[in-house]
């Protein structure tokens, strides 16, 4: 059964990335339900908006001052901040900035976690009451992997590990499929997906092709942005493969 961690006095603030809030609410709902199921007290700051990454990755980090301020106001009191996105978490860790509030910024940066690293490293989850009897292809999102070190990287000579795979292996009935190019970028890349449309789509198509050849029913990952891009390609191809966020799988009974 679920290992209940004694975290009753610990406040977890749920950070819901803007595109999840607007387009994929089911991902945030699954994250919230999953954390509550495990026994966490979850607070959702309702005035949160965006981490500021779209501006910063386009070269306009200096435009996100107000956005950063809003983020700090919403999350400064959290013991832990958890988000179902490696990319947004990495952005906060690397680029959240307010010269007048450096203590609050550091506190946030030290206590923000992507969902799977929070479950593995902080809650020490070893089992989950989840069931998902399907063949599922795993997509490693770059920022979570190479930025947050959620798993080992194929380029480095280092021991192999993967926090999200560890979690997926706890799911009853799930058959996990890892592509040969196990950490090749899908080509989403934020505004890259529209300003370098041709390369972006080609990269996504190639990821889809490998998962298709492996006969998966679902492609899952830790970042909805990558999945949104892959979903757009799959739907255009009228593929039977669906995309699903890892939080949704871990929350399935």
């Amino acid at each position, binding site marked *: 059964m679920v290992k209940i961690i004694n975290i009753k006095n610990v406040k977890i603030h749920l950070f*819901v990335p*803007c595109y999840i*809030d*607007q*387009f*994929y*609410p089911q991902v*945030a*709902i699954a994250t919230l339900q999953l954390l509550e199921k495990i026994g966490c007290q979850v607070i*959702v700051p*309702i*005035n*949160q*908006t*965006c981490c500021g990454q779209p*501006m*910063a*990755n*386009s*070269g*306009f*980090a*200096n*435009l*996100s001052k*107000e*956005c950063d301020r*809003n983020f700090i106001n919403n999350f400064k009191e959290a013991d832990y901040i958890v988000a179902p996105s490696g990319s947004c978490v990495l952005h906060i860790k690397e680029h959240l900035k307010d010269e007048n509030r450096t203590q609050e910024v550091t506190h946030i940066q030290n206590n923000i976690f992507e969902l799977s690293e929070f479950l593995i490293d902080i809650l020490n989850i070893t089992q989950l009451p989840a069931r998902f009897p399907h063949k599922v292809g795993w997509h490693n999102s*770059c*920022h979570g992997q*190479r930025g947050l070190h959620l798993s080992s*990287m*194929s*380029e*480095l*000579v*280092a021991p192999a590990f993967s926090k999200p795979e560890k979690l997926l292996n706890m799911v009853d009935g799930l058959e996990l499929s890892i592509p040969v190019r196990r950490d*090749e*970028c899908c*080509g989403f*890349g*934020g*505004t*890259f*997906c*529209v*300003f*370098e*449309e*041709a*390369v972006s*789509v*080609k*990269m996504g198509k*190639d990821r889809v092709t490998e998962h298709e050849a492996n006969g998966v029913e679902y492609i899952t990952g830790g970042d909805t942005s990558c999945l949104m891009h892959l*979903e*757009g*390609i799959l*739907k*255009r191809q009228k593929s039977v493969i669906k995309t699903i966020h890892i939080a949704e799988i871990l929350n399935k009974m």
Partner: protein
Amino acid sequence: MKTVSHAAAAEIFIKDEPRTDWHDETLWFVRQKRDKAAHGLPEWELLRSWASQIKDNVLSNLDTYLIDFEKKAQANGIIVHWAADAEEHNKIMLNIIQKNKIQKIVKSKSMLTEECHLNEYLLKNGVEVVDTDLGERIVQFRNEPPSHIVLPAIHLKREDVSETFHKHLQTEKGNNDPQYLTEAARQHLRDKFIQSQLAITGVNFAIAETGGFVVCTNEGNADMGAHSAAIHIACMGFEKIIPKAAHLSVFLRLLARSATGQPVTTYSSHFHKPRPQQQLHIVIVDNGRTKQLARADFRNSLKCIRCAACFNTCPVYRKSGGHSYHTAVAGPIGAILNPNMDMKANADLPFASTLCGSCSNVCPVKIDIHQQLWKWRQVLAAEGYVATNKKIGMKVMAFVFSKPKLYQLAGKMGRWVMRTFPALIQNKFNPWYKQREMPTPPKQSFMEWYEKRR
């Protein structure tokens, strides 16, 4: 001539999808060979750290190392020249050529002369240089720049080479046999070597301690040229210096493994002094390097040893081809080196990346390539080299995201518009929609759902 942006050139490249797949797989194969070689050395990450630290030391002590090198080289009988930029480099070369009344020139292994556009400059002055490395010779015949710094003709298939050789070397039309084609090139180049009066080579490592330098090759053309011609000119960017010969034991182990997955290049040729009656020149070039050295965020890009591992691992490079980068050094490293030379002309390059970070992981000298790509974006935006429509879009986004109520309202309206008037979004003016479906906008955002639940 106006250069085509990376995005536009890439779109043209990708139109031939089977060829794009072939290009991608060919370079992925090289990346896999690199992985195998790296994983064969348990001390790989340690070697990378050492190489990075040695280069850090070099970049902080260039003044003394370069002067030490010059003194030692001169004592060994080498003539040392200094060039502030490409133009001066080219003039020095032409001057040596004219002074010695040279007509037959061979060249091997020099990306620096590509960077300086030496061939074009010499041609304008009536001097022809024969590139002797097979890939370089192929692209030279075709009047194309190299598409890769280690594998210059990697964008070409054997059929293309056959056609090129048929035209220039009169090989049989349609004979695509690699052995036959290489033999034709070999015979052709043998003549050039025998006739050559002057050989130009690059430099992989120049050693401050000894005044000597090392050129790493697989085909041995640097040796063929240097040993047959009466004059040898080696050209190097000033960052090629290393303090001691012992440091070669770090760099030579990393270079070929990172580049092609070989334990070491076939030839690691050490040059220390001219042969009797031979002239040996070294041209040490700045060409924007001091400028880059002064940029705190970008100086460590000068650690680069030109292995091209970042090219081979980069999915954007593999799927867009080297020519899309419109610069002598393409790929991720080119995208952080070239804006230093000309921000306006190369403002597109730092955006030709998803910031996936694979480049930084394969880099044998640990250059934080993807972080520098991000930082260049900030510089380019601040300097006004980002398109106005993008800037306006970002300003609007930044404003909306700073006002939670406005964000919620804009999201609700946006989703309503998408559901009610899909044609406003799903049209040819939306680059997302060109080859991808839009996400299905839900009636309720998460926050709306959450507010109701409470």
